[in-house]
């Protein structure tokens, strides 16, 4: 089988085409927003948000009486937004360090989710999908939802680029410019919450963090400016989505895990092969 045939073969299956579109959208979106997660050291918060979605999904399942994905999506989104605002409020008003507040909320909501799920018999199979994603099960309706949210989040990131940059880079300076810094911080939390929920079906909440921070960190290693970092991050995220799906198709790997493994492979490749890295230095040494 030629390379071209190998690339085209999976596209005969409509579910693979939908999965590819979803992976491209989610890979690109989480990689762009992930740049802020990396630069503002919010990785723990991103992971917590992903896990905190679980009770929302369980509650949606109980209330709606079944795994209607559209219902679960909105329940997950509501929970993510509530948790994001909750962490912000605890961090601001209680005398607790932010990572501690996140830890409490993170473990607490996850436990609540598991407790709720344990009351439902037959949820076990669906739970695996929630934890590890099921990109091959994406429907056309899911794609519309993913596409709409991806476009919305990217539009906000683009329109408020310079404000988000100033607020992230130098909060004190942003305050002397009398920019509404609290508004932008909460906005960023909400954007991350949306990304987490949109990515849920692709990689699942267990591997979400990798999609947020791995492509962004890979881009950080080589980009000089934030705009370029976002662009490169999106490229790495999309590439991971596509390559991961093909790996999953040909080797029968879990798709979410395959996508994350490609993202990490790209990270290692860039880390080792950039000018300061050991490969280039080794070549230079052997030459001269």
């Amino acid at each position: 089988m030629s390379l071209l045939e190998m690339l085209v073969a999976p596209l005969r299956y409509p579910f693979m085409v939908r999965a590819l579109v979803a992976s491209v959208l989610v890979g690109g979106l989480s990689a762009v927003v992930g740049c802020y997660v990396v630069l503002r050291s919010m990785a723990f918060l991103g992971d917590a948000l992903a896990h905190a979605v679980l009770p929302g999904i369980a509650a949606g399942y109980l209330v709606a009486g079944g795994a209607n994905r559209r219902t679960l999506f909105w329940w997950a989104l509501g929970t993510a937004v509530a948790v994001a605002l909750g962490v912000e409020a605890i961090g601001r008003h209680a005398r607790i360090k932010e990572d501690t507040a996140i830890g409490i909320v993170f473990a607490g909501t996850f436990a609540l989710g598991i407790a709720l799920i344990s009351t439902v018999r037959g949820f076990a199979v669906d739970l695996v999908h929630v934890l590890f994603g099921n990109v091959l099960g994406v429907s056309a309706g899911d794609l519309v939802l993913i596409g709409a949210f991806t476009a919305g989040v990217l539009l906000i990131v683009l329109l408020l680029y310079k404000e988000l940059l100033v607020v992230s880079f130098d909060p004190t300076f942003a305050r002397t410019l009398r920019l509404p810094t609290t508004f932008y911080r909460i906005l960023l939390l909400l954007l991350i919450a949306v990304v987490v929920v949109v990515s849920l079906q692709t990689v699942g909440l267990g591997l979400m963090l990798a999609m947020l921070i791995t492509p962004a960190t890979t881009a950080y290693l080589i980009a000089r400016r934030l705009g370029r970092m976002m662009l490169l991050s999106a490229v790495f995220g999309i590439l991971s989505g596509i390559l991961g799906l093909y790996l999953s198709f040909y080797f029968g790997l879990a798709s979410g895990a395959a996508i994350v493994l490609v993202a990490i492979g790209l990270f290692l490749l860039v880390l080792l092969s950039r000018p300061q890295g050991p490969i280039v230095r080794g070549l230079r040494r052997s030459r001269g």
Partner: protein
Amino acid sequence: MNEAKRRCGRRRSRQPVVHDAQAPAVCVQDLSVAYEGTPALVEISFEIEPGERLAIVGPNGAGKSTLLLALAGLHPPSAGRIRIHGHAPQGHICIAFVPQRSAVDWRFPVTVEDVVTMGRVRRLGPLRRPRTADREIVRRALAAVELTPLSERRIEALSGGERQRMLIARALAQESDLVLMDEPFAGLDVSSRDDLIPILTGLRDRGVTLLVALHDLGLASAHFDRLLLLKRRRVGFGTAEEVLTETALRHAYGSCLRMVRGEEGVLVVHDTACNDGAHDASGGGP
């Protein structure tokens, strides 16, 4: 140009204040500031005219940084009032504040030019991108601090002095009328310090008022129009000759100070062991 500069702002909603031409650049009356009940500054009053350079001096914990924070509108006074060009600081977008340890992450992927362009953000307003006029302002600001050759460099590659100059350029791009700096010379080597001084003194020609918190009494008396000596309260305010008297210095620095009467006046030796900062021995008044 002048009219535009006086406006200190833009046209749309949440409009920043218009400067009062008759008012002093900075007017502080009976200002007290406290942190959770502990007083950091008590009943400070002073006035500064536009274009003046004021050095705020005093021992560690005297309230120098607190005063700058309050002037920038970043920490609320517990009593008294602050007027910048006739209005409360919170209404201004033309106050540039450079803290000693800024919250800046120096590994952030931005170039020198990107950071200076941030000075334009509020004047542009949301949804707008910098235009030719903004880029020209940024270019001139970079030239004024002699960073034009480094404008494309990522900021983590800058030295301490270059970082301070970049932040001054950002203040210029902000069209700042009041620049507040906290220990800008801390950690700089002598040559970086000597590069920074003419840039700071040159701000006067642009009509910029400069308030700098300093440890070094020598630098304060050599390069600033007036000194404000603090120890929670105002110990002295005026020219270096007026402020740096034996009584005032003894009051502010207490036993950390040794004065030696020499042929060319009084030599003030500031004992660094009393504080954790790096202090210099410096020459005082006659």
